[in-house]
């Protein structure tokens, strides 16, 4: 405790201007820290780490049933993880905190870089270093022409090759040429990073203004997308209240599924006609429908609204003749997780005719069980041997009593409330296997006939106004990435002087050949790979006709053959 006080005492008194400066300094240091590459790297790895629960744990947005089951199976850990947002990783605040910090760091890094790059574009290529022999690439050429002529030749040739060139003269009649190329690398780099920002904005637009809705519709019926209530499941964007959806209607005419002989599905398609652009509610232009064949991988696109075929199934249909002679047709959608489309579900008759309010709860009917498109019996157990409806069979247990709809508990449309069965309120009467046309008679004389089946399809509507922008940014991102990885920022320097002016530092080569000595140095600022062969070509510009082939061996050994090879690898 005392030491802390001592330490505090030792802190020099802070004067007001000093405090102001220290706050500024603190802010500046924070900003520098945030925008440093180290921080960006750490944030990148945090982002990767934080994404992993999204893959490893079930997510509410992907599968609610599995998520609920997971939480129930892990009574201690489940609720904690749920509170932490581990089942909704990509919508959780901590995930947003990471990627927003990352993007802030990115902006902080990009803006100065843009500024620097703009300055570099205006700046001249740097002065020729005194000792070109220190450069990774270096050659010396004896040339017969006057220094002035050689320098002119090199300068013109480099300009023709789109290098940025500057001529300088050094004391003693020494000409130098500095040239630089590959500015596109930085352009690509900046485009790549700005595309990431653009992509984030595009995704955000989709999350704000887009929506998705899914619905199960019978083939033969019509579906209109006018408001969210038309959908079984509607996932609106943050600003979407469903009031300004672009309405459209589809009339599902046919459904066709093709299977291989072994029962593997080959193709699904829905023949439909659709109407878009006018208001189906007001009936304007209702007689104009366009045909479309909706298939997997071939959505119907209507000016931003997209309709997808996601799945399909069977809905067995039964006719019930009640003791008083009244008949009723009932049908329900059955679902399947099985490749043979053996489907399960429940047909419920909640209001049998002739039942008073009092005995309604005694006389409700339910058929729960399986529908087999191609029925196959193992003893009494019905399975399906093929997904197409070649010999439909219905294996159901028939119940009578109280379905429990008034209990307030939510009930699946694909099954009955087991609680009602176990408490005896719903009694199982019999179990039957029926083929089309078969009839079973219940103890009170009610006749149930399996009359056939209908097909249903599950459709999804998607609307994402940010998606075109996302595509554009994805393309610029890829383009920028490729440019920044293939193009090298490279420099070349020529020092041209008469051989006699070369001092004691000459390496002997100068004395051979003509009266002018050209020293060439090259440097690639990021990776030397691939620059070697280009450098040899550039260095050869000192000769009027380019480098004679025989003189290839005289080139500096550092532009080795391995670099020539590498050149190809990176393209």
């Amino acid at each position, binding site marked *: 405790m005392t030491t802390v006080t001592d330490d505090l005492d030792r802190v020099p008194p802070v004067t007001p201007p000093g405090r102001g400066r220290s706050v500024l300094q603190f802010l500046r240091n924070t900003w520098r820290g945030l925008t440093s*590459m*180290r921080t960006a*790297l750490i944030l*990148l*790895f945090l*982002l*990767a780490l934080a*994404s*992993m629960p*999204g*893959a*490893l744990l079930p*997510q509410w*947005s*992907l*599968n609610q049933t599995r998520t609920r089951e997971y939480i129930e199976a892990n009574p201690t850990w489940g609720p904690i993880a749920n509170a932490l947002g581990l089942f909704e990783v*990509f919508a959780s605040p901590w995930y947003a905190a990471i990627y927003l910090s990352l993007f802030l760091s990115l902006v902080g890094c990009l803006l100065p870089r843009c500024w620097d790059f703009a300055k570099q574009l205006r700046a001249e290529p740097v002065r020729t270093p005194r000792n070109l022999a*220190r*450069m*990774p690439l270096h050659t010396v050429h004896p040339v017969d022409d006057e220094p002035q002529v050689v320098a002119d030749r090199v300068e013109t040739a480099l300009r023709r090759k789109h290098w940025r060139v500057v001529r300088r003269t050094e004391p003693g009649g020494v000409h130098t040429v500095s040239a630089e190329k590959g500015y596109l690398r930085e352009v690509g780099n900046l485009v790549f990073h700005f595309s990431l920002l653009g992509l984030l904005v595009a*995704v955000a637009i989709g999350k704000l203004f887009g929506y998705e809705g899914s619905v199960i519709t019978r083939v033969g019926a019509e579906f209109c997308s006018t408001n969210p209530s038309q959908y079984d499941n509607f996932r609106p964007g943050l600003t979407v209240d469903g009031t300004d959806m672009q309405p459209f209607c589809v009339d599902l005419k046919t459904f066709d599924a093709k299977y*291989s002989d*072994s029962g*593997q*599905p*080959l*193709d*699904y398609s829905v023949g439909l006609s659709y109407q878009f652009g006018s208001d189906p509610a007001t009936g304007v232009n209702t007689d104009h429908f366009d045909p479309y064949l909706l*298939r*997997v*991988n*071939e*959505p119907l696109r209507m000016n931003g609204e*997209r309709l*997808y075929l*996601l799945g399909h199934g069977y809905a067995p249909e039964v006719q019930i003749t009640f003791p008083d002679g009244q008949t009723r047709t009932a049908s329900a959608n059955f679902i399947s997780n099985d490749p043979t489309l053996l489907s399960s579900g429940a047909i419920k008759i909640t209001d049998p005719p002739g039942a008073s309010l009092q005995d309604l709860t005694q006389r409700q009917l339910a058929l729960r069980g399986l529908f087999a498109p191609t029925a196959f019996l193992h003893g009494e157990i019905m399975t399906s041997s093929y997904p197409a409806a070649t010999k439909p069979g219905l294996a159901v247990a028939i119940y009578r009593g109280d379905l429990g709809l008034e209990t307030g508990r939510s009930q699946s449309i694909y099954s009955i409330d087991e609680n009602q069965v176990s408490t005896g309120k719903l009694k199982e009467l019999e179990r039957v296997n029926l083929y089309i046309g078969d009839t079973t008679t219940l103890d009170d004389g009610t006749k149930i006939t399996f009359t056939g089946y209908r097909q249903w399809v599950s459709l*999804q509507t*998607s609307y*994402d106004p940010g*998606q075109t922008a996302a*595509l554009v940014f*994805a*393309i610029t*991102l*890829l383009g920028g*990435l*490729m440019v920044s*990885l293939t193009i090298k920022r490279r420099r070349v320097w020529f020092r041209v002087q008469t051989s006699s002016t070369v001092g004691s530092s000459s390496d002997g080569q100068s004395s051979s050949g003509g009266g002018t000595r050209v020293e060439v140095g090259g*440097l690639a600022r*990021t*990776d*030397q*790979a691939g620059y070697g062969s280009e450098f040899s070509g550039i260095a050869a510009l000192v000769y009027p006709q380019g480098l004679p082939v025989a003189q290839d061996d005289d080139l500096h050994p*550092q532009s*080795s053959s*391995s670099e020539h*090879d*590498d050149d190809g*690898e*990176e393209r």
Partner: protein
Amino acid sequence: MAGFSDLAFQAAMAAYVVALICYGIEFAARRAMDPTQLEVASREHRLVRAGAGASEPLPADRPLHGRHIDERDIDDELDDDLDEGPRTQWGPLFGRAAVVLTVIAALVNAASVVTRGIAAGRLPLGNMYEFTSFLCLAATTCWLVVLAKSKERALGFFVMIPVAILAFVAGTVLWIQAGPVQPSLNSYWKWIHVTTVSASGSVLLVSGAASAMYLLRHRFDSKLLVARTDATATARLQASSLSRLPSLAALDKIAYRTAIVAFPVYTFAVIAGALWAEVAWGRYWGWDPKETVAFVSWVFYAGYLHARATSGWRGARAAWINVVGFAAIVFNLFFVNMVITGLHSYAGVG
């Protein structure tokens, strides 16, 4: 046709294993390769800094010069490969046999992939067996290209380890009868998305293997440096098989060059996947487990490329990131397909 394809794959599998053994024998017989001048210089420099606590800045021209040295060293190593004086003769013999076997394995593997495609009447990338088979083929092809350019045959042993394992897993666990795929996979996007994913994955395998070797070599060099005053310890280290790895500079170069080839292809593959998802599932990105882990791997590789350009992160740290990135890819291929349920779960594991 399907039978021939399976037979060819088994032959390729056997050839991979034998090639692996030959690489192993050559590797074990290779003469120890000392750390390069640059490596010694940089380590000593670092030790001086660490020991004295005083920072002694490098001369301005040093990085350039360093670059210059390591390029030359690699060339020297190439020369070493050619003069076989101090080495035992059977090492290179097995090495050459390994390369021949690798070529044969790749050809047979290619025949298997092609005939499989003909038998199934579609692109032979419809399930995990076919995907892994193609991955082995592409990784081996990439390795042969790298070998032709870098001449670092010692790396073959470490590239062939994952390839042989993948081939084995494909031939035993993942094998499945040739047949049609489900309707959602019947799209031309499959050609674009799946081939680029597997091609980039295979190049990243070679990159990851090079980085893993880098880490081993890095540890070995550190030990060597610590033991440099102790002659017996140095001799013992020199005798270890790790001393036969290529130099750090060579490994880093291979890892980086393969990574920058693969990264744009992988990026393209992910974008193509998003485009296909828009067509098939109604949204371009839905954080499906496969998409999530693909994103995670992408972030790792982006991190690797950045780390290589960040002081303090070059070298071993960057190599670690590259290795972790490849681990994420493998995780995505096996764990996400076989354990986690998602939209990509139609891998058809037999």
